[in-house]
Structures are given as C-alpha cells and as structure tokens.
C-alpha cells in the first residue's frame, strides 16, 4: 500500500490506515462489534504500531491516557457499550487534556445487529465535554482520524470519533495518503496542576474545559469538516455520518448541511443555512442530538416528528418520511419461510452445558458472548443478560432479595473473555459478601463472538506471542473459594458437568465451575493449518 493507491476499505480498515498516516504509535482496545477490525487491521498491516487487546475498555482508555501523556499519538477503540465501561476515565480525561493526540473510536450499533442496546454515544460528547467527529464513508473515516489528532493537539483535548455499524463495516473507495510525522516529543513530564485531579486543581481545569469547548464551537463554523452543499432551497437537510449518504441517495437535488463534527456544533453556520432554506429536516439515527441543539438556539426544524428514533435508517425510510409516498409495489411470492435466527455452532463446546442447565430447570443469569444464544431453543437456558459481567452480580442480587426463601437454584454463566473483562470483580464481591451462588465459566479459549481474539485466559497476546494466562484454581483459592467448591470440567463430558453443577448447587458458599472446551471454529482452523 502506498500513497495515491486507490483502495476499497471498510470504515474500520480506513481508520487503521488513518492511524498509520497520522503517526499514531499506540493503539489499545477491547473487541466489540462493530469496532473490532480496527485494532486487528493495525496489528496485521501496520506492524510498527504498538497494539494491545486490553482487559476491558476502561483499562484500554487509561493505558491510552498514559501513552498520550508520554507524548505518543494514541488511538483507543471500543463499541458503544464499551464506552460506558470507559466513561469513568473519559470524563476526567476531558479535564487533564493530552500531550500526544488522543482519539477514542466509539462504534455505535443502531438496529443492534450484535449488541444488547442501541445507545447513542453522541450524548457522551456533550456530557464529557469532548469534541466528536462522525465520518460518512471510509475516505472520511481515514481522513477524520488525522483531523481528530490535529484537533486533539490544537485544543488539548481527547477527541471522540464516532462510527456506526454501516460506516465500520461498509467498504468504500479510499485514496491512501502520506504518513505525517508527529512533532510531539516522547516522554512524560510532570505537571501536577494538570494531571492530578484533586478538587483544587480540577476546579481550575473545569474552567479551562468550558473555555476550550466555547472556542471549538466558534471554530467549528469555519472547519472544513462541516460544509454546506447549497442546491434546491425549498428542501434542505442537516445530517451527518451514514445518513448523509442516504440523504444524498434519496434527494440528490436537495441542499445539505453536512456535519463532520457533531459536537460542538457550528451555530453560525446552522443559522446561515437555515435562513436560506424553506424546509429543513434533521436526519439522524437514534436520538435527536442535532435536532435538540438546533431547536435550543431558536430555529424551527423538522426531525423526529417524521423520522423514527429506533433502528437504522436507509434511503427509503428517509424518502418516505419526507414525501409521505407509500412504499413501491414489489414482487410478492406467498411462500412462508421460517426465520433463521443465529444459533450456537454445531459442535460448539457450550451446547452440552446449556442442555444440562435446561434439563435441571435452574435459573440462569447470563452474560455477553456467543453463549448468550443459550437463551434460544432448543436450550432455552438463560434468564437474564444485561452487560459484561452481570451474570455473576445479578445472581447475587437474586439470592440477597430472596433471602431465606432462596432455593439455591441460580447459576451464573459467563465466558472467559467476559470474565476477565468484568467478571472477576463480581466474583470477588460474591466471596467478600459471603454469597451462596454457583458461577460457571465457559472457557472456549478465545473471544469467539467478535472473531477469535486472544484474552488474558488464552495465554497469547494480540500478536499471538505466548504470555501469562490466568489460573482459575489459584484465583479461586486467593479470593477464598474452598477447594471442594471448585471444579475444572470438560465441555464435552456431560456427566462431569452435571455432577459438578448438581453437587455444587447443593453446597453452601460460593462455587466455581470452569467448563473447558476449545471453540469449534478454532478447532477447525487448527485442523486446517495442521494439514497444510
């Protein structure tokens, strides 16, 4: 790949290229659809950049803060719900600012193709007082990484780059650019007034943050990221991200104010544009982020009164909402076809344990991963799924609330990567607070749902180099789980699993069962590579 090459890249691959072109030297993240391929691409294709799969998003972002303060241009990637995990450092990172440009990619998933909610991460930009950019295709995804780095360094702030699934996973044409080198000197330099957020220092920093956002708001009026495409003045749109592509498809002759920076917003530009256009529609998936702001500065526009605030848009949804035309007639064939829901793979090591839990009729508090599919028939063996790690903690709450009437019939089920991400603290909480729950860790040796990333249980780094792997038995001992309450079992051995589950459910105290069986996809890949 060289400068000037014309490439067909996904948004995620383009962000990876943008990181390289911007001389970003540290990239961290936790896998999560639709963000995962950014770090994978950097690791595979831009090998001089340091990458790591961090234990979770909070850790990834904090490592990123450290790298930035030591002068490295830094990229941190996560999916939208991962940003919730990283929210704690996010809000204070806004106060301390940066040294090397610091860019956080938050990938939202409208329509929840592979997520438990469809939160709109733009709220974080407002809440944490951070600028946010939003690309409309892969070319912009690449270019906006550079813009984000430069804005970060100019205004001394982390910058959020927000994508959605359709940006991250669509491939569009990109022209490869040059690599620019970072002018920032590497090395951490003490600056306690700026980096140590005790109240006395933080109060001063908050004032600086407010000043910064006001300055950026003013500057956004002339940023090339935001542009007016003036055409038909009877119909105009204000939009950003993938919706820009849909609007242009549906209304090629309309006027458009395209926002590349969705926070802070360019008030003067918006006022100027709206004064020229008779009917202005705000087109944005999920929440009325742009619309609410524009209404707050006293401009009357249309938006969520005609567009939905759930799911993804497409050109048809936008066209119909504006023109009120009914959908065009399409070919109809009256054969009923059954749904094809996703399911656990044939031969998946999680299948047996869910069959057993179904047979035993226990309540199962579940977690995030492929194994969440244990909720569907034929297993029907999951009763809650909220967020990473919540299997272990929700089981505790159930026991506490049921008190004397609790029948010791709740089993928490969590995967290996999820356990490392957010399960360990919950397990420690159960031990510390003397709970009587059974926790099953489904260890398939990989982070399967997002495409087989290694994790702290699999003994490999992101580059597949050997590293430590957490010892479940020692962990159980260290937090005070008695040896007789701990079992290692084979995922393909029904009897072993069933004995462990029934035996330990009957016991008082906290119990831990590890069900070990390599992900069937990894098994197949290994077999293949053995042959070759």
């Amino acid at each position, binding site marked *: 790949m060289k400068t000037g090459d014309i490439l*067909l890249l996904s948004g995620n691959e383009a962000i990876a290229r943008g990181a390289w072109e911007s001389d970003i030297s540290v990239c961290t993240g936790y896998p999560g659809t639709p963000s995962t391929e950014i770090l994978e691409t950097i690791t595979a294709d831009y090998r001089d950049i340091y990458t790591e799969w961090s234990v979770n998003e909070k850790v990834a972002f904090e490592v990123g803060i450290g790298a930035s303060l030591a002068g490295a241009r830094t990229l941190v990637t996560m999916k939208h719900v991962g940003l919730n995990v990283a929210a704690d450092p996010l809000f204070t990172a806004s106060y301390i600012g940066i040294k090397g440009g610091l860019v956080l990619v938050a990938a939202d998933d409208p329509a929840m193709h592979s997520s438990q909610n469809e939160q709109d991460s733009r709220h974080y930009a407002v809440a944490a007082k951070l600028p946010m950019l939003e690309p409309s295709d892969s070319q912009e995804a690449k270019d906006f990484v550079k813009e984000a780095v430069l804005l970060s360094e100019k205004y001394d702030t982390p910058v959020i780059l927000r994508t959605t*699934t359709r940006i991250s996973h669509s491939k569009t044409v990109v022209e490869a650019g040059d690599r620019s080198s970072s002018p920032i000197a590497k090395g951490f330099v003490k600056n306690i007034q700026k980096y140590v957020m005790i109240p006395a220092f933080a109060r001063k920093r908050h004032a600086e943050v407010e000043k910064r956002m006001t300055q950026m708001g003013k500057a956004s009026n002339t940023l090339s990221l935001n542009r007016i495409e003036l055409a038909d003045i009877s119909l105009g749109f204000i939009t950003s991200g993938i919706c820009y592509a849909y609007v*242009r498809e549906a209304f090629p002759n309309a006027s458009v104010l395209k926002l590349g920076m969705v926070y802070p917003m360019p008030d003067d530009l918006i006022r100027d544009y709206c004064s020229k256009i008779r009917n202005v529609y705000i087109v944005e998936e999920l929440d009325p982020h742009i619309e609410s702001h524009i209404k707050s500065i006293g401009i009357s526009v249309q938006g969520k009164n005609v567009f939905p605030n759930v799911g993804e848009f497409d050109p048809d949804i936008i066209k119909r909402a504006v023109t009120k035309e009914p959908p065009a007639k399409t070919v109809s064939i009256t054969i009923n076809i059954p749904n094809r829901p996703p399911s656990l793979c044939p031969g998946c090591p999680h299948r047996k344990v869910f069959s057993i839990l179904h047979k035993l009729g226990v309540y199962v508090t579940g977690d995030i991963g492929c194994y969440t599919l244990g909720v569907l028939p034929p297993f029907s063996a999951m009763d809650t799924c909220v967020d990473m790690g919540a299997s272990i903690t929700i089981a505790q709450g159930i026991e506490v609330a049921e008190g004397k009437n609790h029948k010791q019939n709740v089993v928490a089920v969590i995967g290996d990567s999820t356990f490392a991400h957010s399960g360990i603290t919950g397990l420690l909480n159960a031990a510390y607070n003397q709970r009587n729950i059974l926790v099953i860790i489904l260890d398939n040796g990989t982070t399967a749902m997002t495409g087989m990333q290694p994790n702290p249980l699999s003994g490999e780094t992101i580059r597949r180099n050997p590293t430590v792997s957490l010892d479940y038995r020692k962990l159980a001992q260290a937090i005070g789980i008695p040896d007789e309450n701990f079992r290692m079992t084979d995922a393909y051995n029904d009897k072993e699993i069933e004995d462990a589950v029934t035996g330990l459910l009957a016991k008082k105290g906290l119990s831990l069962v590890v069900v070990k069986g390599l992900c069937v996809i990894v098994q197949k890949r290994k077999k293949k590579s053995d042959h070759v």
Partner: protein
Amino acid sequence: MVGVGGQGIVLASDIISLAALYARHDVKKSEIHGMSQRGGSVFSHIRFGKKVYSPVIPEGEVDILVSLEEMETLRWLSYVNSDTKIIFTKTRINPPNVTMYPQNIDQEITNHFGNSWVIEPSRVNEKTGNAKFLNTALLGLVSTCLDFSDEAWRRSIHGNVPDGTFEANLAAFTTGKSLAKDN
C-alpha cells in the same frame, strides 16, 4: 448476494466489489458481521457506478440477486423488481429446529422472474471438480452480466483468495462463465 452465515458471502462479495473498483467504478459494499452471522441470514449489498452514495441498495432497485440458498432468496424480495436477474442456487440449509423445508421456491422464482438462472450445485461441482469452488464458479456466471474486464476479475480474485488457490479459483471462474450458455 444473500445466503446463510458460513456460505462464503463476505469473500465472494469482496471479489465482486474489488473487480468493480479495478474496472474503474466508484464502489460501495455493505454487510453485517457479528452475532446475527452465527448461522443466521446473511446479505451483502454491492453498488457500483460513476458515483455511489448509499452503500445500502434502495428497495426495488437490485439489478442482480445472487442467492446461495433457496429460501433466503425470498427473504429479500422487497429489494428486487420483476426485471431483476436472479441467480438462484438450489442449496437448502434448514434453520435450526425446522424440519419442513418450504417447497416449490424454484418454480415460483422462475414464474415471477423471467430473468432467472437456476443453478444445480452438483452439476457445477462436477464441472469444477470441487465443491469448494462453487462460489467462484457463480462469480464467473455473474461476470457475464457485468462489463468488468477479465483483467479486473483476475486481479480481484488474485487479491482475495488464499495463497496457492488462485489458479484453481481462476479455472472455476472460467468454468462458471460457461454456465450462462447452459441456462
């Protein structure tokens, strides 16, 4: 392209998209990765031309629908019109817990779409000698409907298939082109 997770839609649609780029078109391709792909319905939209805005195809505007699985063809009817060219592969994959596969889909497709090719995978596999190359052969068939040069296809296949399989894939692609005459 539509089908079921695991059928190789991502790779096949990558080959078409890159060939379109090499044929000097603007290109956009959209698909979804993640949970829904664990054996679920899979689609990939590919659009090319002088200038493409939306990576998602508007309803009723599909020119060519390549379907790798019988009933999946019907799931995406809102995107096609009566002139859509349908390449319909007679492969059946039962969803989990479904035993009765819907019947007569091929007849309905040929009745409604004058422009359809029904492909018997076993016959294609006989010609290529390996079921692994079915998708590549189908791409050969697709290529007869598009104006991309042989060189564009060749470069794209070369750039996308695993090392050491290029020659075999190219042979399957060439075999696939001749399927147009059989249909």
